[in-house]
């Protein structure tokens, strides 16, 4: 117990450690704050036209399909189309029809919009009385927001990994590791203290992040806590493994960077590409954060089977990682 007290004291003095645990919480607050900002202009199509080409009526017509940017010369229009930051489409008028200019590097959707525009211009008189049924949709940004929140939660849960790894590497660099050798403390006690600190702070950071960013149904709160506990436990173990393997701060940073990229990218790609039921999708569950991510998205969408599945997978992962960790420990002791 006394050992844990000293570990906590070391954490209190370590601003970096406190900052890294609070970072996901700050991100969650920021995301909640900007949630109200209208980002729908990102979904709009942008058109560039030359001032002398178009009559005000034509510009009004174009404005019904996107945002119109008016330029003085043809060269300005072409420069804007070629600007790599935007997907802007140039529109030219020749006689009674229009032509669309593209840079050729657009995504398929924008090319399709460009090729359809002259035909739509031809039929501009016929669009008066048509029946349209618009189905309400939870807006795109709301969906993105939940994906962001899930990613931030993964960062929070796996912060314990970063902390444990960096802490152990800096102990190695500062020579504390030699002092530990002569302290009246068994290896087991030392390991437990380290896992405990990364685990507890990972849990706390995740719980705070959840409080600030998610409004969950009551029945999911205990499940969420279980998911947090399992993820933080695995991440603390991964952190310990990295700390053991890395022998310098830079190599430690490399390992942490690679594992963070894998932890974030694998579930994100699997989710965005709907890989769930395919073989590749199933293989993604080999990375523990995939189950966490799917579990969080399951809770947000009220999909209980997905949540149950992710809890089972995370429990299996916890056992596997713990066994792996113990095996490596024993091998090291024997050698």
């Amino acid at each position: 117990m006394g050992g844990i007290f000293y570990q906590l004291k070391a954490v209190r003095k370590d601003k970096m450690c406190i900052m890294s645990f609070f970072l996901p919480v700050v991100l969650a607050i920021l995301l909640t704050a900007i949630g109200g900002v209208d980002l729908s202009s990102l979904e709009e199509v942008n058109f560039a036209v030359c001032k002398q080409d178009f009559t005000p009526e034509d510009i009004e017509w174009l404005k019904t399909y996107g945002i119109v940017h008016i330029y003085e010369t043809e060269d300005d229009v072409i420069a804007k189309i070629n600007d790599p930051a935007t997907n802007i489409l140039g529109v030219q008028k020749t006689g009674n029809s229009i032509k669309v200019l593209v840079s050729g590097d657009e995504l398929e959707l924008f090319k399709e919009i460009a090729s359809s525009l002259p035909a739509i211009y031809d039929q501009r008189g016929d669009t008066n009385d048509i029946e349209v049924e618009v189905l309400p949709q939870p807006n795109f940004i709301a969906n993105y927001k939940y994906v962001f929140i899930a990613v931030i939660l993964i960062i929070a849960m796996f912060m314990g990994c970063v902390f444990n790894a960096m802490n152990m590497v800096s102990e190695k660099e500062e020579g504390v590791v030699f002092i530990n050798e002569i302290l009246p403390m068994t290896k087991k006690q030392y390991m437990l203290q380290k896992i405990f600190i990364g685990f507890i702070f990972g849990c706390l950071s995740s719980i705070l992040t959840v409080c600030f960013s998610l409004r969950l149904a009551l029945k999911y709160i205990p499940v969420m806590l279980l998911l947090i506990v399992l993820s933080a436990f695995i991440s603390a173990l991964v952190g310990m493994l990295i700390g053991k393997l890395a022998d310098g701060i830079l190599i430690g940073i490399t390992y942490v960077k690679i594992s963070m990229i894998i932890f974030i990218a694998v579930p994100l790609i699997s989710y965005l590409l709907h890989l769930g039921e395919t073989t590749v999708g199933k293989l993604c569950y080999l990375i523990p954060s995939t189950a966490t991510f799917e579990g969080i998205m399951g809770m947000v969408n009220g999909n209980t089977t997905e949540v149950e599945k992710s809890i089972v997978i995370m429990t299996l992962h916890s056992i596997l990682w713990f066994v792996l960790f113990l095996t490596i420990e024993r091998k090291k002791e024997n050698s």
Partner: protein
Amino acid sequence: MQKSFCSLLKKDLQMMISGKFFLLALGSLILYTLFINLGYVNFMKAPGYGVYMYVPQGVSYPEVFSDKIEVVQSEQELYDCLSEDTNGIGIMYKGKEPEFVLYYGSNTIDNHRIAYAQSLLKEKEFEDPIVVGKNTTEEKQRKEMSCELLFIEIIAVGFLGIASILFKEKQMGVMRVYGITPAPKAFFILSKLLVFLISDLIFAALLTIFNVRSSEAFHILPRVLLQTGILSLIMALIGMCCSLLLKDFKQFSLAYLVVALFISAPVFLSANTSAQNSWIKWHPFYHLYMGMKNAFFDFQSEGIVYFLLCLCSIFLLFWFVKMAFMRELSKEG
């Protein structure tokens, strides 16, 4: 003089090798190359709108329509298609006139989707747009991602690398030894800058050649290397500045977090989307990023003012680092 500079250079190179800096750079290069070639280029796709049509039996409808329209067998199937492809448009013939069904996107996008479905229904001919650029979609994606990753690598990893070396030297007492050697003090800074500059230039060249992969890679390389050089010098100097002024590596990590997250995030958002913030023009890294991006896309040049400002800031930072270094030396006695 030349000899002392060479031995300093050799020492810095050895420090980088022992600090596994090159291993980190090589790891990043492999990771980024794999990501661009296997991941980004294959996954970033946005197909055109799907159009689905349902005509109940006995209802008359235009027999001739575009083959881009997919005919479905029931009303339910149409709604199912739309819920899977939320960008899609449904056409339903309940009476004589068609009814269009779609999920709300934005007012203008919805207008376009309806008009698009109408033109398909009338079997209007679409004409290919006139191409005025020189990149294909894949080339653009490759250049865009290479540019972003190179930028991140230099501002994040290069920044971190120089700091880790300086802190190690501080710890080892190299500064104290340096204080009593007769070599000019600026050499200490210059040798580090040179080593990092060369390693960043090699990294940039390899990343460009492996990932841009068209004959254009060699054409754009000089401009990319120039921008990399500017960015590398600025970041190395800022990194040195921070590590000379801050107490230890952990404190430095705080500064690093600020740089990596709060400085680069708005730059990427403004440079890659049409969401423009007016204040972003005052963000110096935005211009550096745009310089890099324009180099990759062989787009308009930055002009003499940009290069003069870069040169001035490099000199200013160099002077500042030298002052901080002298302060550190006097502190060390």
